[in-house]
């Protein structure tokens, strides 16, 4: 194995360099070719994208192979892996570090480029060539960054006998798949970006453009939703404090593109259906990807301190900042120059579906801006005062600014879909939503009398969730004309309804579920903190947890103290909870593994701590009502996105002619 050990690394590096060459060709020749009308150069875009993809895949596979066979002659493997690590975490270790995560980033970028090359046959050839060229240039920037400052294939001679392991906090299935989903989201937004740049260069944004941008944005948005939810779920069960969102700079870095991407999804509808809001949508596409890049900068440059941050290095920071300035600055210059020429066709009154979507965009972007300000404020203050003044912005800032912006948004989400295009009847929409209004009021009244420790704000939250949930259903019912036409006619409408409608309904209902989970779990959580001896019982929310005792157990690369609780309710046995404290030796570190019994209505969450030296153990038990609905709601949102993505209108690669006819057939339906 030592013989071919360095071979893996060398093949990987050569593959990266070849990919760099391909990306340069992909980024330049088609761009010049489209400008001067050189057909042969335009045609280079597709094979170049394919070639780039092949060599990046090769590099990525080599790095993964290095991890799988524990080839410690590759420095990156030696620093981040260990022979005793379970295979899943050897593989996830590939992207658990700065260099490897960059390779994953570029790999996904190349994958998206390949999809345009393969399935973009219904795009105008010049548009496709320009999109691929922009993708190629982004790829070139990141490959150059990787090779010059963050080469994952640096070799060690002689190779160490054992690797340095991976942070055990990161050895977790939730976290293993968290980065790939996040990157699919971040990089997915690069498609919208490339289309925006290509459109600015062409000087034209047509409804067909929006039909192309929407599926990519939707796919990216779904992945990002799943990625953020996975990360928050991981924090919930792994950090052992029952919290699931901390407004950490790195969390914010993923949340900002999500907010902007959500806005983009909605404004692209207006471009597609109404041929309006063009320059705004192009700007949103640029902003969304810019925020993804900014996230990469914040995580990797060391300008902000965060627990999530990769080992940072100022040289890398300078390079990424330069990349940021070229990509974002360049695109905004292009925007300032070309956007005034984008002509919008549709006119509409402020009170219309378009108006509603603008309100949606306004609120989402404002929310995004408050998060951005909160994240960057410490840095700004530091810079302005020359390092003499430092602050940290904590959760109170974010809850006090973010939530007030979200409240009107949630109210509006239920109303928006009920408005008609161009000019709408707000009173009519509201009167059709009277059922939702009634349910929302009922929730407040019932809650007022039945829930003992409910604050007014939490009742409002519950009521809003109910309003949104029922509102989404009422909207669907209206579209299907339930109760107004016969069952057979309703059924025909169920089938004829575009999937995008169901997707929207699901996504809005998912948002309602998430809000419900957030409000219920934060308002009515109970906790018990105590030292328990074996045989003692703790009571929480009607459950009795009998502390049976603790046992030492060994894991693949750690030793663990495992406690056992027997949970019963009114004397009847329900479940056994076994929280653990794991002690890793390489690197030395302890992690808490909470034991969670999730049910539909509440989670029981138990954590064990240190012994008190007299036979007792510190224990923490939480009862969190409906907390899993937070992530269930996120999954429903992402599912809604996928349903919408499967809409024939948006299906990537469907022949353009057929699509066009279908669109005509559906203009009224949707």
């Amino acid at each position, binding site marked *: 194995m030592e013989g071919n050990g360095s071979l893996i690394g060398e093949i990987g590096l050569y593959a990266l360099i070849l990919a760099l060459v391909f990306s340069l060709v992909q980024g330049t020749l088609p761009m010049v070719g489209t400008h001067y009308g050189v057909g042969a150069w335009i045609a280079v875009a597709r094979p170049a994208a394919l070639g780039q993809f092949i060599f990046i895949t090769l590099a990525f596979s080599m790095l993964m192979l290095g991890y799988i066979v524990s080839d410690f002659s590759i420095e990156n493997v030696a620093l981040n892996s260990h022979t005793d690590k379970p295979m899943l975490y050897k593989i996830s270790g590939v992207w658990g570090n700065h260099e490897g995560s960059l390779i994953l980033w570029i790999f996904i970028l190349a994958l998206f480029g390949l999809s345009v090359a393969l399935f973009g046959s219904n795009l105008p050839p010049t548009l496709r060539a320009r999109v691929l060229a922009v993708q190629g240039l982004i790829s070139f920037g990141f490959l150059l960054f990787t090779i010059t400052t963050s080469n994952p294939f640096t070799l060690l001679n002689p190779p160490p006998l054992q690797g340095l392991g991976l942070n055990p906090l990161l050895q977790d299935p939730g976290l293993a798949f968290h980065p790939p989903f996040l990157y699919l989201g971040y990089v997915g937004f690069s498609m919208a970006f490339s289309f925006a740049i290509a459109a600015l260069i062409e000087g034209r944004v047509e409804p067909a453009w929006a039909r192309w941008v929407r599926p990519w944005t939707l796919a990216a948005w779904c992945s990002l939703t799943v990625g953020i939810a996975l990360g928050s779920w991981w924090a919930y069960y792994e*950090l052992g*404090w029952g*919290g699931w969102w*901390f407004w*950490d700079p790195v969390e914010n870095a993923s949340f900002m593109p999500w907010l902007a991407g959500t806005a983009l999804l909605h404004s692209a509808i207006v471009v597609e259906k109404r041929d309006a809001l063009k*320059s705004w949508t192009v*700007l949103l596409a*640029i*902003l969304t990807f*810019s925020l993804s890049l900014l996230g990469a*900068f914040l995580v990797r*440059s*060391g*300008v*902000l*301190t965060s*627990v999530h941050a990769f080992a940072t290095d*100022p040289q890398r*920071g*300078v390079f990424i*900042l330069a990349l*940021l*300035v070229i990509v*974002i*600055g360049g695109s*905004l*210059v292009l*925007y*300032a120059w070309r*956007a*005034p020429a984008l002509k919008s066709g549709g006119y509409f009154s402020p009170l219309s579906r378009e108006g509603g979507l603008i309100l949606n965009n306004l609120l989402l972007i404002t929310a995004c801006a408050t998060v951005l300000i909160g994240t*960057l404020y*410490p*840095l*700004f203050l*530091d*810079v302005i005062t020359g*390092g*003499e*003044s*430092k*602050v*940290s912005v904590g959760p109170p800032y974010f809850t006090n600014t973010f939530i007030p912006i979200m409240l009107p948004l949630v109210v509006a989400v239920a109303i928006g879909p009920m408005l008609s295009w161009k000019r709408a009847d707000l009173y009519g929409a509201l009167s059709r939503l009277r059922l939702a209004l009634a349910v929302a009021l009922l929730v407040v009244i019932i809650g007022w009398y039945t829930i003992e420790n409910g604050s007014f704000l939490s009742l409002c939250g519950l009521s809003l969730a109910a309003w949104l949930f029922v509102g989404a259903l009422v909207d669907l019912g209206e579209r299907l004309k339930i109760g107004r036409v016969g069952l057979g006619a309703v059924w025909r409408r169920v089938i004829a309804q575009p999937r995008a409608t169901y997707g929207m309904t699901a996504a809005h209902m998912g948002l309602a579920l998430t809000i419900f989970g957030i409000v219920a779990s934060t308002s009515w959580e109970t906790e018990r*903190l105590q*030292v328990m001896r074996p045989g003692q019982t703790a009571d929480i929310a009607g459950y009795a947890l009998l502390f049976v005792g603790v046992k030492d157990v060994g894991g693949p690369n750690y030793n663990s103290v495992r406690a056992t609780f027997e949970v019963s309710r009114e004397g009847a046995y329900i479940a056994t909870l076994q929280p653990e404290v794991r002690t890793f030796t390489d690197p*030395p*570190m*302890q992690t*808490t593994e909470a034991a969670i019994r999730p049910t539909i209505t509440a989670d029981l969450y138990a*954590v*064990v*701590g*240190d012994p*008190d030296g007299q036979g007792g153990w*510190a224990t*923490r038990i939480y009862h969190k009502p409906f907390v899993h609905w937070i992530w269930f709601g996120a999954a429903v949102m992402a599912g809604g996105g996928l349903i919408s993505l499967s809409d024939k209108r948006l299906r990537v690669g469907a022949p353009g002619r057929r699509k066009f006819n279908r669109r005509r057939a559906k203009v009224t339906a949707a």
Partner: protein
Amino acid sequence: MRYLLPLGVFVVVAAALGIGLTMDPRVLPSALKGKEIPDFSLQAVQGRELGLSSANLRQGTVSVVNIFASWCGPCRVEHPYITELRNLGIVVYGINYKDHPDHAEEWLNIHGDPYVRTGADLNGRVSIDWGVYGLPETYVVDGGGHVIEKHIGPLMPDDIRSKILPAIQRAMK
């Protein structure tokens, strides 16, 4: 004009990021070094007996003061290394910043208590006098109650070796 606005905003952000890169977010404003610690007196964290006051820091022994909270993720990260400092025989005091007394007690029970004395700074007033910017923060204080060194952010083995231990040696002279 309105099309130039996004570019303008970005230029400002990029400039700030650029300057930010040249600064280390963990470097202490030099003005605080060498200054006297503020006068304060805090009750012990719930469940512990020994509280912390400025008098404890002026008794001639070099000490390390660590500001922590149960709600602070990075505090959890540095916790084993704070314990290691204590195991090296260094006097470590803890100021518990704006924490729920139950949580603070439990945190120390579960993860271990490396502190010789603790002070519960429930409203954060004392920490403000110390000039705390964000948790965790760690101060090296000489026997006379002067701040010798300050570290912002989680204290990692590297920081102990390159910053805290040399500062303690300086303080002992």
